């Protein structure tokens, strides 16, 4: 490989590398979306791909998200593996009919005859000072749509591994890229990229004994920070990074909560009808007699994503997480 940077260290670079390696390994992989070609995408994740693989493999489409996903469906019907970029979270909404009525169901509708190996990359979440419609956390919509896998990396290595796995999957995968982690760096070595991560496995990012923080994507670093800060209060927090929302790794999550007896779910998405409700409910179903306190949720407020100057109030931060941990009925301990 010549045109793609050889020293990726940010998440964005790992994603580029994953796309590159997938395209090099399999000629049926096609990247498509708005500005993904010459420009390399507004986040530069597809940088260099059009140059290396040609515009037929990395295509600037007309500006129409339903059309992008809809034509990707047809391409997948014909044996290609389209990797679609939705430029921002909120701009995936025009494609929701295609997503819900076709992408998620084609295999099912055709009794297994017509699987759709489509990867839909969606930069999501806030914390980047974006104007309205550029910071939505839309994972609840995807989670509520059977037939989709929903995956989101929190580390540079996972960005590579999970994206490779998504593209290799014979099912449609919504691949949620935390925008504010695009420029997060890691000592990940591009020359020996991690093995492809299987989809569906959560991972304990930090072991702990007092309580479990269940989280994913952009909130993982925040939870790790909170766990560090919690030591001062005498809490030893475990942090579980879900990585995959669908399928959900009940085993890893429940094992952690059974161990700690307390849990807080943390995400940026709104609370009401958001992922946290599902997670809290299933953890409670499985760990009821191990729980010292109800599973709490720290999430974005149930409001449209705020303007940049107010977003810090909205985003779950270290203090709000620790406040929730403090509400986990520690009195019962004594």
């Amino acid at each position, binding site marked *: 490989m010549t045109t793609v940077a050889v020293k990726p260290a940010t998440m964005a670079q790992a994603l580029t590398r994953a796309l590159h390696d997938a395209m090099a390994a399999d000629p049926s992989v*096609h990247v498509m979306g708005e500005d993904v070609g010459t420009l390399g995408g507004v986040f530069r994740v597809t940088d260099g791909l059009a140059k290396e693989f040609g515009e*037929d493999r990395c295509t600037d*489409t*007309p500006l*129409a998200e*339903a*059309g992008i*996903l*809809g*034509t*990707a*469906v*047809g*391409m*997948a*019907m*014909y*044996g*290609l593996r*389209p990797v679609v970029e939705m430029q921002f979270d909120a701009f995936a909404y*025009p494609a929701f*009919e*295609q997503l819900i*009525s*076709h992408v998620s*169901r*084609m*295999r*099912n*509708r*055709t*009794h*297994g*005859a*017509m*699987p759709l190996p489509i990867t839909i990359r969606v930069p999501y979440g806030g914390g980047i000072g974006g104007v309205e419609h550029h910071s939505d956390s839309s994972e609840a919509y995807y989670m509520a749509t*059977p*037939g989709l*896998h929903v995956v989101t990396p929190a580390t540079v290595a996972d960005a590579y591994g999970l994206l490779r796995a998504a593209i290799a*999957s*014979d*099912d449609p995968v919504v691949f949620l890229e935390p925008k504010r982690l695009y420029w997060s760096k890691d000592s990940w070595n591009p020359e020996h990229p991690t093995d492809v991560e299987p989809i*569906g496995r959560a991972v304990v990012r930090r072991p702990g004994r007092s309580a479990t923080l269940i989280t994913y994507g952009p909130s993982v670093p925040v939870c790790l920070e909170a766990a560090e800060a919690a030591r001062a209060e005498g809490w030893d927090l475990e942090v579980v990074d879900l990585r995959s929302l*669908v*399928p*959900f790794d*009940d*085993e890893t999550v429940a094992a952690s909560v059974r161990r700690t007896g307390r849990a807080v779910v943390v995400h940026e998405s709104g609370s009401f009808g958001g992922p946290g409700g599902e997670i809290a409910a299933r953890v409670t179903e499985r760990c009821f007699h191990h729980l010292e306190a109800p599973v709490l949720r720290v999430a974005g407020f149930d409001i449209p994503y705020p303007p940049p100057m107010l977003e810090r109030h909205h985003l779950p931060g270290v203090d709000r997480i620790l406040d929730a941990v403090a509400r986990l009925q520690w009195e019962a301990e004594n």
Partner: protein
Amino acid sequence: MTVMEQRGAYRPSPPPAWQPRTDPAPLLPDAEPYRVLGTEGAAKCDPALLRRLYAELVRGRRYNAQATALTKQGRLAVYPSSTGQEACEVAAALALQEQDWLFPSYRDTLAAVARGVDPVQALTLLRGDWHTGYDPYAHRVAPLCTPLATQLPHAVGLAHAARLKGDDVVALAMVGDGGTSEGDFHEALNFAAVWQAPVVFLVQNNGFAISVPLAKQTAAPSLAHKAVGYGMPGRLVDGNDAAAVHEVLTDAVRHAREGGGPTLVEAITYRVDAHTNADDATRYRGDAEVDAWRAHDPIALLEHELTERGLLDEDGMRHARDAAETMAADLRERMNQDPVLDPADLFAHVYAEPTPQLREQQALLEAELAAEQGGEHR
């Protein structure tokens, strides 16, 4: 750059980059729908083709009648009949070659059958034992599509993919007059034209979207006039003239196959039956209009031509009818058998591998069914 820097730089001339990107004239449809039957052009038609079309129309009409009867007997949940539109249905299937793809809408069961899909499997959706009843790859017929116009971008993507792979494949996608109002129609046609994808769009303008007449659907001179806005040719054809529809579609398919890009064809036809058996068309239209269209029946039109020219006699007609009756009898018989259902199918095709969550749910259902069987259940 300030205003001052600009001074003197001005030369009055058209904006630098602008020129019409294509000549619009050849993209515009003719003023009248193209017709063959009853015109001089009919003489040029291949008699074998006309006879083939005739046999298929007769079979198609019988299929529609039989399927409608099956709804009355409770064997089908619902049937959106294409009675009166058989010329479009049949011509769409026949205009394609073996390796090509058909993208039918929910009303186009007949086109799928004419392309070779098993008549019973084509009705699976409407009987309700599964969604798509046939393997789309067997005859290269995409699933009958209920969300209107959503299959059009699929056709474009498939045709584009085939072209990228160097395969000789054309996709023909069918949509109703109502479906042209959807955003997906617009986006599909635009992608097709920009990519010069080998795809043909057939709009069956049958005058209604359920109860909504065309005048409430569009103010355009014709639906074919939409083509120029995408930079593709628009063609207008009498949708009840099987020879004309077949010729226009065959031309468009050839044009696409030769790298000429997409075409939009509007076929003027009429939905003679109600929207479905569940609909009451008397609520929104009068008999006179329906009768006028019945007088322009596609089968009668072709039959007239064939008999006038001595290409069809009573024997030939009986032969076509007998073949149709044989098909209908077979359809009746097979549709009167209860389909065998397996509840495990509910979980088998959601993902390549069921998720752990689905396995749990499947186990729950299996336990319930076992209890039911054992009579243990409440």
